[in-house]
């Protein structure tokens, strides 16, 4: 009998809840016909899979959630861009925060600088998020006329830095400190550039 030795422990109760959520989400996906709603529903179902990972309940689970989350977000971004082209939405320029004070006063510069500096102090993933937010805020308040090329190069460099650190960890374990700092700076740069790219895509200068 398959039930042998199994009891209704906390883990199984959690799984029951998570898979009930997934079931509801998938049932909704089965009958949904609108393309945009399908995308949103899938994003909802992803949450159930993160719950299943979290139910492992160890430090390993926390480390596995991060890749799981990133994969979902990355595919969501690519798919929403495909959706825009597929539906033939011409880009209708999103207006900047068209407040006169913001356009000329140094306030956005100061706020963004504070955010970026604080992000760099924090470093790592969260630091990248905060510093990236600062740059997005700056791009929103000013017209951005530069090209993405610099951002893309920075993104590539940070990726290479990260992979290099990985190899240091694997083959020269005694230099772990160098590898740790390399990874931390790599992820910082990566998150900053990715967020700035999203900020730059969001609207175009008039």
């Amino acid at each position: 009998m398959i039930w042998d030795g199994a009891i209704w422990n906390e883990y199984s109760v959690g799984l029951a809840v998570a898979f009930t959520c997934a079931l509801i989400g998938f049932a909704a996906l089965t009958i949904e016909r609108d393309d945009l709603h399908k995308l949103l529903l899938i994003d909802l179902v992803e949450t159930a899979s993160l719950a299943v990972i979290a139910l492992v309940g160890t430090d390993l689970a926390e480390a596995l959630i991060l890749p799981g989350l990133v994969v979902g977000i990355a595919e969501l971004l690519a798919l929403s861009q495909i959706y825009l082209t597929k539906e033939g939405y011409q880009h209708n320029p999103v207006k900047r925060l068209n407040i006169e004070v913001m356009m000329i006063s140094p306030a956005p510069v100061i706020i963004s600088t504070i955010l970026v500096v604080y992000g760099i102090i924090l470093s790592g993933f969260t630091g990248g998020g905060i510093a990236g937010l600062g740059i997005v805020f700056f791009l929103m308040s000013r017209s951005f006329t530069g090209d993405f090329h610099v951002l893309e190069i920075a993104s590539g460099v940070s990726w290479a830095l990260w992979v290099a650190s990985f190899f240091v960890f694997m083959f020269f374990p005694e230099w772990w400190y160098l590898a740790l700092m390399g990874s931390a700076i790599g992820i910082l740069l990566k998150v900053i550039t990715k967020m700035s790219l999203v900020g730059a895509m969001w609207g175009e200068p008039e």
Partner: protein
Amino acid sequence: MNEIGGTPLFFLEFGDIVVYFTPFTLTLFILALIFTVFVLVSRPERQIDIAFGGDAFYDKVISLSELRFRRFMSIACGLACMGAMVTGDVFDFTLFVSLVGICNVGIVAAVKSRHVQNAAYQYGLVALAGTVPLFSAAAMVAATTGTLSMLELAKNAVEIPLAARALLVLGVMGEGMAPFYAAKAEMFRAPGAPYVIMCSLSSLLIFLRVAEVILLL
């Protein structure tokens, strides 16, 4: 351990994730490698529409940037395939499989036709939905056995729930759905050999590999 794909020939240790080569996985790895090299060196086909009843024909032009982008995606897909063939960790395997899925979306989505874009979008949705059973399966393996390493799991110390295996297969099916689309005329109408073939080959390879993983667990 039970040896489905033969005795491991050699191991590559990356911390907790051990990459191992058995005769089976090595064969698949070399296949993926050869095809990636083909993609790297080959020139894409050029399609010609012939107007019936006359001597006229139209040459379909592919822009250089599109060509470069699709080649980049195909190479990324080949590398992801090679990783998925030899990795010895369940969660790492699911990550490589999702990378294959997103690369396939990229190969198709670069084509500048509304119809193909729609197909790419629908396929992308399936690939995204496929990550749910994939990651759930890996997490359930970790929770019920306390390990993710295939080498440890192959010792058959703890029984893995049947549901976890079934979810893993379902997830791989979602990610490897591309050839069922690629078989459609709409997709081949887009000029794209050998890049579209990469979709088919990659999903064939991940299906073969997941069969081994399921038998091993």
